Each structure stands twice: as C-alpha cells, then as structure tokens.
C-alpha cells in the first residue's frame, strides 16, 4: 500500500501509471550492476521513480576522470567507494527507498549470490567478462536483464528475458576488446536513461520492451537504428544443449 506521502510525491506519474503501477515500483527489487556512466543516470531515475529496493554493485573507487559522466559522484567523493557515494546521493534524493551497496567485482563465482531474487537487473557494467558472468547468473535465476553499453558517441541497449529472447552471449558471442574507452558524458546519460526507462516499463507493464531488438544509438546525428535479434540455438550460455556450459567464460 502507498502512503499519503507517496501518493503525493508520485502524483504526476500515478496519473499515468496508476496507483497499481506505483505499487509495483515500490515492491520491486532492482539490481544495478555498475555505478558508473550508465549506472548513475539509471539509478537516479529509478530512485526518484520510487523503485522500492535498489542493490548497487561496483568495486571501484571514484576517480577524478569519472566526473565527466558519473553524475552521482562529485569532487568530494574522489577516493571513496562508488557504491557508498551512490547510496548517499540516492538516499538523499529519495529517503523512502531501501538501498544496498555491494563493493565487489562481479565474477562467475559470486554473480548468482549477488543478484539473489531481484525482479530485474540493469547491466551497466564496463567490461564483457563481468557482463557474461551477470548474463549467466540472470539466465540461471530467470531474471530479466537490461543490457546497455557505450563508447564515444555510440551506444546500444537491449532487454534480455531468459528463455524468451536472445541472451547477451547470443548477441555478442565474442567480447569486444578495449578497456579504457573514450566517452562523452551525454552518451552514457542517454543509454543509462533508456535502461531506466526500459526498467520502468518492465516493472509497471507499460509500453513495448526492447525484446530481441538491439537499439543502436548514434550520437553523431542523434539517429536510432534497430537490429532484430534471435536466440542462438547453440549459444554457450542459453543454448538448449549447452545450458551452463559457458560458465568458464564468465571469468575475468
């Protein structure tokens, strides 16, 4: 049940998604994997939308070079854990939420335990080994995962529903290389916000999800293209006869 305060706070969106939609957001547990360029905008909008429980996973500390895009982290946070910095800001924005911070690297060993029984996962990570580990754990638990990635002016996003859509490994069987990528803050902001947007639709049952569709954002001319996707029957992560066989690929 929503409190009077909540009905007032969210009145502008309740007018759109109804009290039932707001209650769904309140009841939801969303895991945010990554509190960086994608995770900051995604977490911000999920928090102010009233998603009741957020788990933020990131092992990094805030660095000066993060500040062009990681908007939850400020000058005063340099050297602090990103998860703590993010939890404090989000808690101040919306004190009604339950926010957990987990300062760990996501690996094949811990991914399953970290995501637990969440309703939804936001893949806002910055590298494919961790993304693959998260994908496998999400498949194992049957938890939908909204994947986003960015570099420079480019970004993409898709929603993975276990057993229904192509999984991350179906779409990207081989990891794109590169560790330090150039990035314009707004590219991460746009894709991170699209991830939050997709999450809100998923949780409230509104709109149409990016299922089996890869949305490709090109910031050069602000154009959007869709690639149609399908499951790979011999996918190392979700293929019928290879279930679980891809776990070794989750190692960093």
């Amino acid at each position, binding site marked *: 049940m929503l409190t009077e305060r909540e009905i007032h706070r969210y009145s502008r969106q309740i007018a759109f998604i109804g009290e039932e939609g707001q209650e769904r957001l309140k009841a939801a547990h969303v895991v945010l994997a990554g509190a960086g360029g994608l995770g900051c905008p995604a977490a911000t909008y999920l928090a102010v939308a009233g998603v009741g429980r957020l788990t933020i996973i990131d092992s990094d500390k805030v660095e000066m070079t993060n500040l062009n895009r990681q908007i939850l982290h400020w000058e005063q946070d340099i050297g602090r854990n990103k998860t703590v910095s993010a939890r404090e800001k989000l808690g101040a924005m919306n004190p009604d939420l339950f926010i957990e911070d987990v300062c760990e690297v996501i690996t094949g060993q811990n991914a399953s335990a970290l995501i637990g029984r969440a309703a939804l996962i936001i893949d806002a990570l910055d590298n494919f080994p961790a993304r693959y580990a998260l994908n496998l754990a999400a498949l194992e638990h049957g938890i939908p995962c909204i994947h986003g990635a960015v570099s420079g002016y480019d*970004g993409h996003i898709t929603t993975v529903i276990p057993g229904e859509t192509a999984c991350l490994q179906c779409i990207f069987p081989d990891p794109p290389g590169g560790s330090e990528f150039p990035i314009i803050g707004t590219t991460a902001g746009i894709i991170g916000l699209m991830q939050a947007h997709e999450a809100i639709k998923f949780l409230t049952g509104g709109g149409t999800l990016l299922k089996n569709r890869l949305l490709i954002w090109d910031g050069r001319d602000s154009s959007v293209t869709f690639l149609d996707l399908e499951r790979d029957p011999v996918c190392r992560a979700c293929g019928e006869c290879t279930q679980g066989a891809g776990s070794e690929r989750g190692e960093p």
Partner: protein
Amino acid sequence: MKITVRAFARFREVVGDVTALDLPEGSGLPALLAALASRSDESRDLLVDEQGTIREHIIFMVNRKRVSRSALDSIILAEGDEVAIYPPVAGG
C-alpha cells in the same frame, strides 16, 4: 551486382553511413569485407586483426538476418542485398 552496406558506430565514421558496392556476380560475404578492408588502413584495422582474420566481435547482418561466425565464409550475396556491420561498444 550492387550490394548496400550499412555501417554503424566506429565503422560508420570510417566508411560512411550507407555505401553501395559493385561486386562480381556470385561474390560472398568475405569478398565484400575484403573490398571494404581495402578502402583504407583504418577500415582494414576495424575489420581484421593482425593475422588478417575478421575480428570476432563484429556483428554482421545480411538482409536484417544475423550471420553467425561459422556461416560467414559460406554466405553468397545477391543483387540488392543489404549488409549491416556493427562493431559493438563495450563500455559503461
């Protein structure tokens, strides 16, 4: 025969948005990629590694259908086909 190439992300920067290529009848996807790679050092660098193998992470679609790595060499193109090339991004 005319083949349309739709390039995305970094690859679009290098070869342009939509490129029309004229290839001999019966050419396969590898011939198209070789033609694209020969356009510039940057183009070659994005498509193939030091050994000359097509980079594994690149996504190829022919007429909006995904081409798997194992099928890449056996795809024969036809007049009017559209090939989309997306080198995915990974950062966050």
